[in-house]
């Protein structure tokens, strides 16, 4: 978090609508965001079985344009962004020179020389500053587009049907991790088949002045199939079940992608140097020789919920730490992601527990994710 004086929270273009829907609001990275509208469990189940509507306008959009946009992003980020086709998207990371993770990102290639980088709300300024600094010497422009977009996500098995009723865009031709410009309910939108819930779904980037109109059109289109508005609380349990990392929990500047088990995002073979290469090569080597703690799933045998920061124990010794935990509506049991010593990381390892306020509760070690949708 920044060290500046606390200021008034920012409001999205949908703020009045959330309040009229009776949302419980919460401060999130300086934004006043809906936590839930009714029961977060019901919202979670709606996304898994029907559809949910999210306001994600707090996410940080940064546009990168210019003849060397691709080469610049290859230098600034750890992924091979130049190899992303137009109309496709990639999950990637921006690291410090020492290899620590500054943020995880989704990068959409909108045109040959135009990309949109989407950063976490809490890191948007940090990412913007780092990209701006790293752009020196490249024929590339980094533009802060945080105020240019509202972001509405419709997620869940019914979401393709809902969206199809509102757009002529070729949704069947739109693959997972792809995005194309189109019109939804008469509103110009970047339609992306991405999300953070483990379900099929779409993220719609639109001008803020169109957000209310689009939200209402989606609500109406989803009426017959059980679409409900959803808050950040169920977004967190959905992503946890899907085993997706969250910055500040599973990812931080004190971890490299190799410590986080996300080796695959680092592309040493790409052309040219990139920020963090040397440190990441060393981190890869270290990980090879001396396996770091491994990110695993834990499923409770009992009913007590593990929270971020709680110790993972085995034989009375601390062997790891919980990074995220919550009751899982889909599994009906508390679940957690945790970094544990490699010796205890194999699925089915016996005798692993979580220290829940002094009591060692038994947990089963499982591979991530907890939940995978049927395709």
């Amino acid at each position: 978090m920044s060290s500046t004086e606390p200021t008034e929270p920012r409001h999205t273009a949908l703020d009045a609508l959330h309040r009229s829907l009776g949302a419980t609001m919460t401060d999130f990275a300086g934004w006043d965001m809906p936590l839930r509208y009714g029961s977060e469990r019901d919202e979670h189940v709606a996304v898994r079985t029907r559809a949910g509507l999210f306001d994600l306008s707090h996410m940080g959009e940064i546009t990168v344009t210019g003849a060397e946009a691709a080469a610049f992003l290859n230098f600034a980020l750890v992924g091979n962004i130049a190899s992303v086709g137009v109309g496709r998207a990639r999950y990637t990371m921006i690291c410090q020179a020492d290899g620590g993770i500054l943020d995880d990102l989704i990068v959409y290639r909108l045109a040959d020389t135009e990309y949109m980088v989407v950063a976490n709300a809490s890191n948007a300024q940090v990412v913007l500053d780092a990209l701006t600094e790293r752009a020196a010497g490249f024929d590339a422009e980094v533009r802060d587009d945080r105020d240019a977009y509202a972001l509405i996500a419709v997620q869940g098995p019914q979401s393709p049907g809902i969206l199809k009723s509102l757009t002529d865009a070729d949704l069947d031709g739109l693959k997972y991790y792809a995005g194309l410009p189109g019109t939804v309910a008469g509103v110009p939108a970047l339609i992306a088949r991405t999300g953070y819930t483990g379900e099929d779904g779409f993220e719609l980037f639109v001008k803020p002045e169109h957000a209310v109109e689009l939200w209402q059109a989606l609500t109406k289109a989803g009426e017959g199939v059980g679409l409900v508005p959803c808050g950040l609380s169920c977004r967190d349990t959905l992503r946890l079940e899907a085993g997706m990392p969250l910055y500040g929990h599973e990812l931080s500047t004190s971890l490299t992608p190799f410590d986080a088990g996300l080796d695959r995002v680092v592309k040493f073979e790409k052309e040219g140097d990139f920020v963090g290469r040397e440190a990441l090569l060393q981190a890869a080597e270290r990980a090879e020789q001396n396996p770091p703690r491994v990110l695993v799933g834990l499923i409770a045998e009992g009913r007590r919920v593990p929270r971020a920061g709680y110790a993972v124990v085995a034989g009375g010794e601390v062997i790891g730490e919980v990074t995220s935990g919550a009751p899982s509506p889909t599994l009906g049991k508390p679940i957690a992601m945790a970094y544990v010593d490699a010796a205890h990381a194999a699925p089915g390892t016996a005798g692993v527990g979580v220290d829940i306020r002094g009591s060692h509760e038994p947990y089963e070690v499982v591979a991530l994710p907890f939940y995978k949708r049927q395709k």
Partner: protein
Amino acid sequence: MNNPQQLRYSKEHEWLSGAEDGVSTVGITEHAANALGDVVFVQLPEVGDTVTAGESCGELESTKSVSELYSPVTGEVTAINEDVVEDPSLVNSAPFEGGWLFKVRVAEEPAGLLSADEYTAFSTGEES
């Protein structure tokens, strides 16, 4: 928020029923249940335990957080609500009825428990 007139309330958002044969029932208010979100686990005192007014005697766990359960009075626990242990969502769905938490033989009541109207004003003020 609907706070039943016949109950008394603590500033920690517990309610206390009138005593029948010296035994009162304790629960948390609808205001508190809403603030917690979906309650998924309750840890209650045991029958025979002595609870002390204003002191922690259990915990309520919701999707996002853990909260201490305070006793509004001092006395001996005579019953706990097994239904709510089995199905903690009763705290959300019926905080003043099926979602009661425990019964206590009141030995001492602190000064300063609120009436329904006083509690409504207090909890509304806290909200804004």
